[in-house]
């Protein structure tokens, strides 16, 4: 088995320890998200009571973890996860990111960094040929995303690849992301703020050690075969042409686009993919990608994605295409999570519309579609100026608002909803964001196959037993969400992009069988589809335990009030909402599928196994 290397870096003391990641932990969690979770739980416990750990204090471990396959020639193996206690939600924080950084980190000799403490002055971590150097970065403090990355290239050479924070991270904005390239963002949960709280401006990777691969020729053959399979898939072809903006027209036609904070459910055609395409001059890719889904836009940035179009466009009532693309570029320059920003500003706009907040707090009118105000407000959020300083608190801004403001917040577990899909129609989508371990997020489990009218036998083959095909009903949604949980956790632990993962927008992408072949060839580890799914289960159990450490329980697996109480207003989805009693039944079924008890607790024997594994991880104490 190829060796995996972890560096434990204490920014307070300057101490660095580099060692092999325990092989049994790699076997149990693979890498990426899964292994990050094992380290996160271990280090939060080492710090004392996880509930007492200040997310923006030196005790919060910040973990960068590349997937097991990241940087190899496995298809779309580009990704890494950044994990910590989230300053946005106060619970498990974990963000997944593409681009080129993770492959560079592995080539520099590291699979995982556990960053502890707080540097005295603005600093950077340089990873080079298996060594870690902590250096002064005072000259970079204050720079936006690309200027910071460009300055690092000047300083360390053109082959340097960095993950940085922008002003938002420096100012500990709770929805700040970690950026690499123009738009790749480890966006969710405020990981950029954690980096800022550690006075860490950048992690820089330099050096070109080849990533060790168990069977080079076999891996090459598997790659060729899987690439051919993927390229024959319609979704891969379409994503390569237009990227994720293609989803907007479909959701909008259904009446499932979050619009004006989900008061409405459809918006203008000006945000259709064909309009976005007019501003696209090239499609780009991440490491080893066979899809090429990313736009470079003619307004000086990359993107936008479907999420950005929906949340900085429809959700704020902003229709002009160029304005939405400019806002997309702005959040990337400042280092913000577009999903949280679009959700939180829309929340504030509705509160203003309803007279629940006024000019005394906002500093002036806050109206739907007011591009200039939104542009200024995003800058103010990143720099914590005026009302921007209030919104920089994300969901925690509730303390500045009257209590009924909670009724209009589209968030779960303190995390604003990630994507622009109004989930009141597809009940599996609703359950998915309710139970997602990091809060309201579609990328943990979304059962996207619900929209296809797949034959019963195909659905049974995918999910393992017969299941109800009605996407608007409540039956069997626990089954399909738990299925999505596991395969997405495996994907995130391998470092593979979900756009080539079986079940995410297509049943004709890479599944457990394909992953087993890749893992055997790249890492020399033997898995069966069943034992690989077990890795996903273990990751989910570990995440559940982390959140239980923070005091979360069944009551936290819920939805925004609006999704229960307000029927969707128009189009095909008109009248749909989530029934509270039926929702509880979906939760029961989901827990049963997961093997958790009726309160959503992980059984003690599985907890004991996870704790045993965690004890194999060395900590500082």
């Amino acid at each position, binding site marked *: 088995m190829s060796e995996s290397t972890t560096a434990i870096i204490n920014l307070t003391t300057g101490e660095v320890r580099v060692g092999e990641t325990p092989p049994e932990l790699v076997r149990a969690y693979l890498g990426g998200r899964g292994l990050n979770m094992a380290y996160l739980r271990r280090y939060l416990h080492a710090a004392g009571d996880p509930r007492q750990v200040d997310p923006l204090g030196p005790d919060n471990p910040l973990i960068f973890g590349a997937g097991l396959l990241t940087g190899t020639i496995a298809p779309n193996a580009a990704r890494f996860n950044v994990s910590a206690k989230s300053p946005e939600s106060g619970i498990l924080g974990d963000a997944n990111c593409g681009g080129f950084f993770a492959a560079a980190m592995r080539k520099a000799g590291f699979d995982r960094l556990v960053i502890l403490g707080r540097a005295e002055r603005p600093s950077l971590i340089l990873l080079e040929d298996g060594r870690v150097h902590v250096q002064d970065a005072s000259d970079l403090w204050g720079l936006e995303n690309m200027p910071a990355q460009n300055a690092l290239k000047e300083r360390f050479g053109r082959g340097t690849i960095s993950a940085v924070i922008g002003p938002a991270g420096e100012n500990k904005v709770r929805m700040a992301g970690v950026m690499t390239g123009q738009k790749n963002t480890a966006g969710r949960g405020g990981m950029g703020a954690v980096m800022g709280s550690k006075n860490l401006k950048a992690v820089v990777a330099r050096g070109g050690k080849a990533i060790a691969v168990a069977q080079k020729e076999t891996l090459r053959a598997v790659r060729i075969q899987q690439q051919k399979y993927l390229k024959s898939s319609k979704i891969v072809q379409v994503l390569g042409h237009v990227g994720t903006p293609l989803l907007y027209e479909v959701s909008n*036609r259904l009446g499932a686009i979050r619009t004006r904070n989900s008061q409405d459910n459809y918006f203008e055609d000006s945000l259709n993919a064909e309009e976005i395409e007019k501003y696209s001059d090239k499609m780009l890719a991440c490491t080893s990608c066979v899809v090429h889904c990313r736009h470079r836009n003619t307004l000086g940035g990359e993107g936008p994605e479907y999420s950005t179009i929906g949340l900085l466009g429809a959700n704020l009532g902003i229709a002009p295409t160029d304005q939405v693309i400019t806002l997309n570029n702005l959040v990337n320059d400042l280092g913000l999570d577009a999903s949280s920003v679009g959700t939180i500003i829309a929340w504030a706009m509705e509160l203003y519309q309803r007279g629940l907040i006024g000019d005394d707090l906002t500093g002036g009118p806050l109206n739907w579609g007011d591009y200039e105000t939104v542009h200024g407000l995003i800058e103010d959020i990143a720099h914590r100026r005026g009302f921007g300083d209030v919104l920089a608190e994300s969901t925690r801004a509730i303390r500045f608002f009257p209590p009924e403001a909670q009724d209009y917040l589209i968030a779960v577990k303190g995390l604003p909803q990630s994507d622009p*899909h109004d989930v009141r129609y597809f009940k599996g989508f609703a359950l998915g964001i309710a139970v997602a371990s990091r809060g309201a997020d579609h990328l943990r489990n*979304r059962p996207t196959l619900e929209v296809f009218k797949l034959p019963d036998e195909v659905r049974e083959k995918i999910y393992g037993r017969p299941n109800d095909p009605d996407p608007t009903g409540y039956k069997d949604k626990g089954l399909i969400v738990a299925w999505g949980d596991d395969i997405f956790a495996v994907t995130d632990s391998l470092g593979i992009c979900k756009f080539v993962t079986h079940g995410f927008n297509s049943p004709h992408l890479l599944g457990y069988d394909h992953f087993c072949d890749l893992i055997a060839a790249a890492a020399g580890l033997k898995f069966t589809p069943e034992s690989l799914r077990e890795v996903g289960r273990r990751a989910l159990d570990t995440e559940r335990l982390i959140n239980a450490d923070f005091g979360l329980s069944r009551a936290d697996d819920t939805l925004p009030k609006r999704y229960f109480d307000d029927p969707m207003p128009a189009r095909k989805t008109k009248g749909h909402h989530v029934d509270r009693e039926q929702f509880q039944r979906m939760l029961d079924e989901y827990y049963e599928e997961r093997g958790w008890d009726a309160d959503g607790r992980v059984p003690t024997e599985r907890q004991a196994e996870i704790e045993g594994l965690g004890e194999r991880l060395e900590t500082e104490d």
Partner: protein
Amino acid sequence: MNVHVRLAEPFWRVVGQRNLDVELAAGSRMADLLAALLAQYPALAQEFADAPPLLFVGEDEADEATVLGDGRHVHLVWPIAGG
């Protein structure tokens, strides 16, 4: 009668345009429209086989039996709802 057809991604690519006007006999149904489209653009057959489109007339979801009227707007949408 004339119906206005909009083809969303990816259907329009094999047709070359996103918006079409199609002449149909009075009283035609959605099935007649689909047959007319397939006759004129045979490459659509593979697209529809890969992913049968969601069909809308105006704001309402339709099926092959839906009767079309003169001047109605028909929207063929790929069944996808990811994120």
